[in-house]
């Protein structure tokens, strides 16, 4: 069975211990029980049952959604933040007691819940505040909620059960409180704007439905919160109803978030569809299928090639894993304990690790096939590359030898011949000396002639020096056949191309003269649509085949090393047609 490892570029955080999560869950339930207890002993409380219900309605969803999120995404701080928000809601309940310290804490935390909601909503989905504006809003929110609350309490605001009163300035306290409420409501509305700004900035494909529901719910909660705070500041008549609606909405926010998590699981239903498609014939484009299943059009699929110790794309081209800060994430797919492939996808998909995991696992078998294919292509490329290098190296070596012969031995022999010639001029008419000199000169001439043949066999210098057209004209002139040569409009091309085409014609003419017993040959060489085409047709006995003649096999190597194609049509009694096509665009 395939294993799937998320290879997140950032540091991993250990998953929270299940015991801790259980304790937090139980604490959440217990805190609601405490709330109910406090409400039952407080006789001044207005609509105690409803208040308990509302507080629990906030606490339980936040704590439990936080627990689920933390367990699923240990890397995200969003889960712990939600849990914190859930318990913070409970803190304000302490003001229901008459115990001075607890009451003070409760009063201090009365509006903290507004600030922490702002924090949670703006930190969605990573748990971190992404922008400067978000950070400023949240910090000001905390200062307004807690800092101003301290001032109000010191001025003797609210009731006298807390410990912070230093002066009894009710009017001033009310002014500060109004400033506090209006500030927080303004921040809540700014928060809505920030949420929408972030949403609009996402690429279209990332604006998925579950995320949209979450953002909508968060925005609605913030709007309600702003309305509640304004109603509080101006002591509007419908305050209690607005509070009810606000708390009801805020409790829905974590539920919407949970629904988003659930949707990631539901998306796995698409995996079964993927499995069906993977079995389709002919084999589908795996990368495209995975991109569809993961709803990330930027997804790329790369394969691990153990022989090369490197990653390669579907065509076998070497490729590297993305850099940690590139906004891409990588999930490595393993089989039998060995990595076979990796999915490289947008970092936002990291929010749905279960989906990535399910999709990768489903595709593992197909990935193995895909990897073998990529490996095969890489080998072919390597083989082709090495053949090209061998042909090039041979070509370079031959050219070097020809050059050495030309500049060395041949020049020296010509100088020697010249010296002998001058000597013969000066020696006078002693017949014996003249005879020996003549013999020496003819020996030198013979050596020069042999060297010339060797040099020409090594490398057709006329091709590199004067071009294919000139070289072919010489070649045709030196071949004892009736040849019709056409090289009209042939431009100068790169040396390897010209030399390869020269050898194709040369070898074909040799074959036509020596083996095929041809009398007439047509040679057409020209560039057609960015391809150098050399075609040689003879009227010989045919029957040439590339396996028999090492000459023709060598030609095919030479042509294929240049990404070209050599084809030979030959049938007994029907002549031979050789056609080389070499891309030169």
């Amino acid at each position, binding site marked *: 069975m395939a294993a799937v490892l998320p290879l997140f570029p950032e540091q991993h955080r250990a998953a929270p211990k299940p015991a801790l999560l259980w304790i937090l869950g139980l604490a959440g339930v217990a805190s609601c029980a405490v709330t109910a207890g406090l409400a039952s002993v407080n006789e001044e409380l207005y609509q105690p049952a409803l208040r308990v219900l509302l507080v629990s309605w906030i606490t339980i969803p936040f704590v439990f959604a936080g627990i689920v999120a933390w367990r699923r995404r240990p890397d995200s701080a969003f889960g712990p933040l939600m849990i914190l928000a859930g318990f913070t809601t409970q803190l304000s309940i302490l003001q229901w007691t008459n115990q001075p310290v607890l009451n003070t804490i409760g009063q201090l935390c009365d509006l903290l819940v507004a600030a922490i909601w702002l924090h949670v909503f703006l930190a969605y989905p990573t748990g971190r505040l992404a922008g400067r504006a978000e950070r400023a809003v949240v910090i000001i929110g905390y200062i307004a909620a807690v800092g101003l609350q301290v001032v109000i309490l010191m001025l003797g605001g609210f009731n006298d059960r807390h410990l912070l009163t230093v002066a009894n300035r009710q009017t001033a306290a009310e002014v500060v409180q109004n400033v506090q409420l209006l500030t927080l409501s303004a921040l809540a509305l700014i928060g809505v704007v920030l949420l929408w700004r972030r949403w609009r900035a996402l690429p279209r494909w990332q604006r998925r439905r579950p995320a949209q529901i979450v953002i909508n719910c968060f925005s609605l909660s913030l709007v309600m919160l702003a309305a509640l705070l304004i109603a509080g500041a101006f002591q509007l008549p419908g305050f209690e109803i607005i509070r009810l609606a606000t708390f009801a909405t805020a409790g829905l926010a974590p539920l919407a978030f949970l629904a988003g998590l659930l949707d990631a699981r539901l998306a796995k239903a698409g995996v079964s569809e993927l499995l069906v498609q993977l079995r389709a014939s002919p084999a589908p484009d795996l990368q495209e299928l995975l991109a569809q299943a993961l709803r990330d059009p930027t997804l790329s699929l790369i394969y691990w090639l153990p022989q090369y110790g490197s990653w390669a794309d579907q065509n076998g081209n070497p490729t590297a894993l993305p850099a940690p800060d590139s906004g891409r994430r990588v999930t490595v797919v393993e089989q039998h304990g060995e990595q076979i492939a990796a999915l490289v996808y947008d970092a936002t998909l990291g929010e749905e690790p279960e989906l990535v995991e399910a999709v990768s696992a489903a595709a593992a078998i197909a990935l193995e096939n895909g990897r073998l294919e990529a490996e095969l292509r890489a080998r072919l490329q390597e083989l082709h590359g090495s053949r090209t290098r061998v042909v090039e190296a041979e070509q370079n070596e031959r050219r070097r030898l020809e050059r050495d012969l030309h*500049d060395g031995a041949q020049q*020296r022999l010509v100088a020697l011949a*010249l010296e002998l010639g*001058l000597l013969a001029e000066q020696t006078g008419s002693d017949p014996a000396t003249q005879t020996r000199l003549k013999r020496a000169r003819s020996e030198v001439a013979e050596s020069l002639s042999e060297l010339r043949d060797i040099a020409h066999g090594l490398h057709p210098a006329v091709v590199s*020096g*004067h071009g294919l057209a000139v070289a072919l004209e*010489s070649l045709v002139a030196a071949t004892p056949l*009736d040849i019709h040569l056409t090289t009209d409009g042939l431009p100068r091309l790169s040396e390897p191309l010209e030399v390869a085409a020269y050898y194709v014609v040369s070898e074909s003419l040799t074959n036509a003269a020596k083996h095929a017993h041809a009398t007439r040959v047509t040679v057409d060489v020209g560039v057609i649509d960015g391809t150098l085409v050399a075609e040689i047709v003879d009227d010989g006995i045919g029957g040439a085949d590339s396996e028999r003649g090492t000459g023709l096999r060598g030609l095919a190597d030479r042509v294929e090393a240049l990404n070209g194609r050599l084809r030979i049509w030959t049938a007994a009694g029907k002549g031979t047609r050789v056609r080389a096509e070499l891309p030169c665009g």
Partner: protein
Amino acid sequence: MRVAIAEDSVLLREGVAQLLTDAGIEVTARCGTADELLVRVAEDPPDAVIVDIRLPPTHTDEGMRAALTMRREYPDVGVLVLSQYVEVGLAMRLLADSAEGVGYLLKDRVSEVKEFIAALRRVADGGSALDPTIVSTMLKRHRSSDPLDALTPREREVLELMATGASNAGIADAMVITQRAAEKYVSTVFTKLGIPATGSESRRVLAVLLFLRS
């Protein structure tokens, strides 16, 4: 006669200069590159230049290009191209317009001092000197219904000599016959091959080459 030399091998350059000086020919410039030759010729035009086909820096076609430039810009200066190999294709390029005042010989020919000097003088005087291997190579080509088959061996010999740029007197010398007999052979060859008789010796070189190539 005044001659400039372009040859990058010092050994050979000095050898040829020695050969020319011994023959009473003034060497006006001894150059290692094609560019140097063109500069020296512009300063002091000689009667003829001797150019190695492969010259620095790339040792590919620098000499050839210098020769073609000379032909174009100094039509009165004879150009004798020397090479380790002779190519029919290059001969055709060199003689594209006319065979006047041009020669193309294997480097080996310098050892045949007398013949070499004669060829050089011919080129300087506006005649031609084509390496015999070019003609013999072209004669090897087999043609179906070949008019060359109608030639006798002696007439073939005359044809080859004509193609090298030899004059009637030269043909007579080489074949050890009278000049009159040589003239007769020449006209017979032209008639048999259907080549219109042409005036100058260099024109008939071109005529023979074009006939052989067709």
